[in-house]
């Protein structure tokens, strides 16, 4: 098997060498790809074929670059792999012209090789896509969990969107780190933007509050809508002695009171109207 493979490799290499111009031209016509890219690929392919070990890493590297560039241009992976597959047809024309049965056998081996390379471009394409999706998910996670300073010694975490374990973990870590960094003794978790609270989310919130307490900070929860309050009571979730408030303003007022800050309204502005003396 290996001997016939290496024979096929040699035969194809010879064929690609002798009728390079013809194959390249035909390939370019079918692949609709800039000629220099194809020429580069072709050269790499010939180099790999002439190597008795059959090391195709250079070709794969080039193909990966090729596939990524085309993915960025917004071309579909089918178009990219079709450009590679069309090499088979271009070579077949040359093989047919020789009319030699052994060359045909070698061609079958070559066709399988090109199929592999075409599929490889597809793999690279989907890998590149997946990386983009992963990056975006990560960015979203970062984006959606800000920790803001509300007052000296009071920080706030406005939560927006559905809470799951991964997000809650990030929120928890960020909040606790922020408590240490700013030396804040009060934290307010605002869940105005959380559409639904189930037992799991409540459990996560309770854990966050418990962890903050262990570190010596008070944590209150604000922004509980009437529906969520109903759900929590219906589900029978015990918030114990955790302070819960309807709005962020109430929670801030509570935190200020606890830290001994007194806020009084400024003296109301007096409006005086005086008739101008004539």
């Amino acid at each position, binding site marked *: 098997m290996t001997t016939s493979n290496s024979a096929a490799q040699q035969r194809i290499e010879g064929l690609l060498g002798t009728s390079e111009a013809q194959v390249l031209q035909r390939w370019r016509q079918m692949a609709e790809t800039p000629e220099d890219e194809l020429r580069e690929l072709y050269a790499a392919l010939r180099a790999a074929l002439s190597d008795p070990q059959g090391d195709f890493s250079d070709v794969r590297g080039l193909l990966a670059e090729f596939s990524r560039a085309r993915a960025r241009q917004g071309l579909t992976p089918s178009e990219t792999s079709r450009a590679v597959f069309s090499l088979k047809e271009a070579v077949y024309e040359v093989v047919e012209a020789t009319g030699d049965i052994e060359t045909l056998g070698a061609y079958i081996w070559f066709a399988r090789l090109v199929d592999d390379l075409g599929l490889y471009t597809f793999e690279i394409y989907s890998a590149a896509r997946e990386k983009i999706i992963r990056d975006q998910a990560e960015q979203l996670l970062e984006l959606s969990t800000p920790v803001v300073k509300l007052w000296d010694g009071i920080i706030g975490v406005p939560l927006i969107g559905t809470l799951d374990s991964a997000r809650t973990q990030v929120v928890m870590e960020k909040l606790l780190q922020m408590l*240490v960094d700013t030396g804040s003794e009060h934290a307010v978790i605002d869940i105005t933007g959380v559409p639904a609270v189930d037992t799991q989310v409540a459990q996560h919130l309770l854990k966050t509050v418990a962890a903050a307490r262990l570190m*010596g900070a008070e944590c209150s929860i604000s922004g509980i809508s009437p529906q969520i309050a109903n759900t929590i009571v219906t589900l029978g979730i015990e918030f114990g002695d955790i302070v819960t408030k309807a709005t962020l303003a109430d929670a801030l007022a509570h935190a200020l009171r606890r830290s001994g800050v007194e806020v009084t309204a400024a003296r109301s502005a007096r409006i005086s109207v005086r008739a101008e003396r004539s």
Partner: protein
Amino acid sequence: MERIPILKLGDILIVTIQIDLEDQSVLALQEDLSDMVVSTGAHGVIIDITAVDIVDSFIGRVLATIAGVARMLDAQTVVVGMRPAVAITLVELGLSLGGVRTALNLEKGIALLDHVWDPAR
């Protein structure tokens, strides 16, 4: 086994743990602290765990016990400087250190003790 030093500052005892905690050291600390509370008549104990990376369930329980013993001897215990990772671990283990007061850092811990102790004077 390393023994953890206990410092006296006014009527407060301060313990700063700067080594990896072993079960034996923590148990020794518990004994030493109760002796010290009695001999000095301290009204507050501050355990600083800023430098501690790992707190397991046993150490968590001993900290709670220390607080309980100190309370029996009329001293308040404050655990200060717990790291976020340690706090998360303790919560995941289901330990809430009931009866132990906590503060973010040593300064706030001392302030807390003053605040707690003041009315009694």
